[in-house]
């Protein structure tokens, strides 16, 4: 057992934090709305090798593990960075795993790769994350084959959405399609990619949760009401203490899920779902309480808390109604079917 980051991981975490603090202030996040994508920032993170950080060295990646990717995801959440690092990482890892050398090379060089979170229906993959700006979309076809889709365009219109995310539909019929794997190999690899996405997304939600708590704590330490600091009120303290406690639990759980995926532990898939669910709820609670304690200002677009609240909510919905995800945990971990 070791619950601390390794020295080089801590150095990476510090570096990422410093980078994002400098390069991704909320002014940049706001400037990238409503599309939710900043191509320049994307090039910067590609240059740092972030989307391919967990791809083996010999395939041109960083040779790190999901744990390191988790540190990246945390900062993506903490700074609500307008770059699709989580989808791209899961997709890039998947390309590496199924030996799609050409596509992997493109992704390592900065092509935006992503995966579908929802099974395509009637030939359309709906609401693909980063779908509006993706070059490569990975999905499962009707017969369980792993497909890479390309349509030759660099951007597509994105529907107006709560999380100001570059989601978009992809019409499979209008794409160049490459079959990367078939049969069990395809479904196993794709399922694995979704679980990586879940665990990374959990880290991103924890980043949101932490920053939302920080914003709330900063605010109530400065603002006064009825002659005392807002943070003096016991009910404010207790609700923030609950949030802080949950966040630290969520962090441990997300790290465990990443560790379990890295080591192919038996409960890895269940842990990925558990981390995703708990972190998503924690992030929403953190944002919601923090916004409430901002008073009227929390509701204004000028303050940053709304940037976090909207994404905490939107990101938690990417897989569908989160209640269904709970049933996946019951099935995988407890053997209880719906």
């Amino acid at each position, binding site marked *: 057992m070791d619950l601390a980051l390794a020295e080089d991981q801590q150095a990476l975490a510090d570096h990422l934090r410093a980078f994002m603090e400098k390069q991704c202030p909320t002014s940049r996040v706001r400037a990238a709305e409503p599309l939710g994508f900043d191509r320049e920032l994307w090039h910067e993170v590609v240059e740092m090798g972030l989307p391919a950080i967990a791809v083996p060295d010999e395939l041109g990646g960083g040779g790190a593990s999901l744990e390191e990717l988790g540190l990246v995801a945390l900062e993506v959440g903490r700074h609500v960075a307008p770059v699709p690092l989580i989808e791209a990482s899961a997709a890039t890892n998947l390309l590496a795993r199924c030996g799609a050398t050409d596509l992997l090379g493109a992704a390592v060089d900065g092509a935006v790769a992503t995966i579908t*979170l*929802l099974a395509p229906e009637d030939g359309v993959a*709906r*609401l693909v994350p980063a779908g509006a700006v993706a070059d490569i979309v990975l999905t499962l076809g009707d017969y369980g084959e792993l497909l890479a889709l390309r349509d030759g365009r660099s951007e597509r219109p994105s*529907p*107006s*959405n*709560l*999380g100001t*995310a570059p*989601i978009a*539909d992809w019409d499979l019929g209008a794409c160049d399609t490459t079959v990367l794997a078939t049969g069990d190999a395809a479904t196993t690899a794709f399922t694995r990619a979704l679980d990586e996405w879940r665990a990374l997304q959990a880290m991103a939600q924890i980043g949101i949760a932490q920053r939302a708590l920080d914003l709330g704590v900063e605010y109530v330490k400065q*603002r*006064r*009401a*009825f*002659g*005392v600091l807002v943070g003096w*009120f*016991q*009910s*404010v303290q207790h609700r923030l203490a609950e949030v802080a406690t949950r966040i630290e639990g969520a962090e441990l759980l997300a790290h465990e899920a990443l560790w379990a995926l890295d080591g192919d532990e038996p409960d890895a898939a269940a842990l990925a779902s558990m981390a995703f669910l708990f972190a998503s709820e924690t992030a*929403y609670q953190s944002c*919601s309480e923090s*916004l*409430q304690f901002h*008073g*009227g200002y*929390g*509701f*204004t*677009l*000028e303050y940053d808390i*709304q940037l976090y*609240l*909207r994404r905490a*909510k*939107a990101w*938690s*919905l*990417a*897989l*569908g*109604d*989160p*209640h*269904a995800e709970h*049933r996946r945990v019951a099935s995988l971990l407890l053997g209880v079917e*719906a």
Partner: protein
Amino acid sequence: MDFTFTDDFAEHRKAANDWVETHFRQEWIDEQRATGTHHEPELHALLACDGILGAGYPPEYGGTDVPVAFREAVTAALSTRGLLLDGWGSTHIVLRVILEVATEEQKQAIVPAALAGNVIIALGYTEPDSGSDVAAARTRAVRDGDEWVINGQKAFTSTAQAATHVFLLARTDPDKPKHRGLTLFLVPTDADGYDLQPIETLGGQRTNFTYYADVRVPDSARIGGVDEGWSVMRVALVHERGGNTLRGQGSATLAHRVARWVNEQRAAGRRFDPTVPERLARIAIDEEVSRLLALRVTWMYQTGGVPGVEGSMAKLFATEAYKRNKADVIDMLGPAGVLQRGAEGVALDGELEQEYRESIVETIRGGASEILRDLVAERRLGLPRSRP
């Protein structure tokens, strides 16, 4: 007891719908959404012209013989179409206060003009640094002969961009305890030294900071006694909390609306999580309890009572439930729950996404939940005041 639902509008509904049908213009909606200004001058003029604004007001101040129920049926019909009448809402509250506490001259000067559609009043209580602690207002009004000189600023002065006046809470005696040195003024927005700056919100509504730099108003702009502003505020708050928590009945409730949509989607082959029926039932229960707590406030008014803590309870329960449930129905929509009005595949034209964002401020404005819980603890349970 008797919980019979009396449809007060029933006899006016058809006429009201006809009125709306005749006058309604889709541009108003588009404009409200684009600007975030929940006031439509053209509509307001029509309402004034047809005597609808004057419904229920005494004839000597411009009141008309239009039945109040007709006005409410029109309001309801407009609201069903998505139009908001916040400008009239705040004006109406202040007119009620004026009729209760102002001088005869003031009543004559303001009420008929407002009922004719020429006066819109925004509420200027909260300040940038006071939030829920409204009585901590620091905006100063200093008497200078027959005038008052006002300096300070207000936050969240909603609809000020469309208003002719701000109903302003100012400190007239800084040496008295904080609730005792306050006075209310009706400040014209064309006064020298008045300014405003927009505040955009998560719900899409625009509100404002308003600024007062040596704004001079005559003593006749003072509503209520000098330093008696807090008791005037109480009158206003009673009017403000009145119908605040009634949000649709019968088939218009959130539970019914989402239930209909779920059943339609199911009929089209879509599957929902098995927890959805229970979640809808919980929403229906919350909505019924909210309705009953609000109904109790109405009933107390009607029977000559003065609801106090009952209004706090109604607002507390309804807004907390509303916020919680709006967030939950977004989940039921699944991945498409994030889509906004106009997006392809959006459910119910994005109404729920819009209402979800709007719901977030409800537990803050008009008495934050924390303040309301303090009040319930003190006034209902007799617990000692813990606030300093």
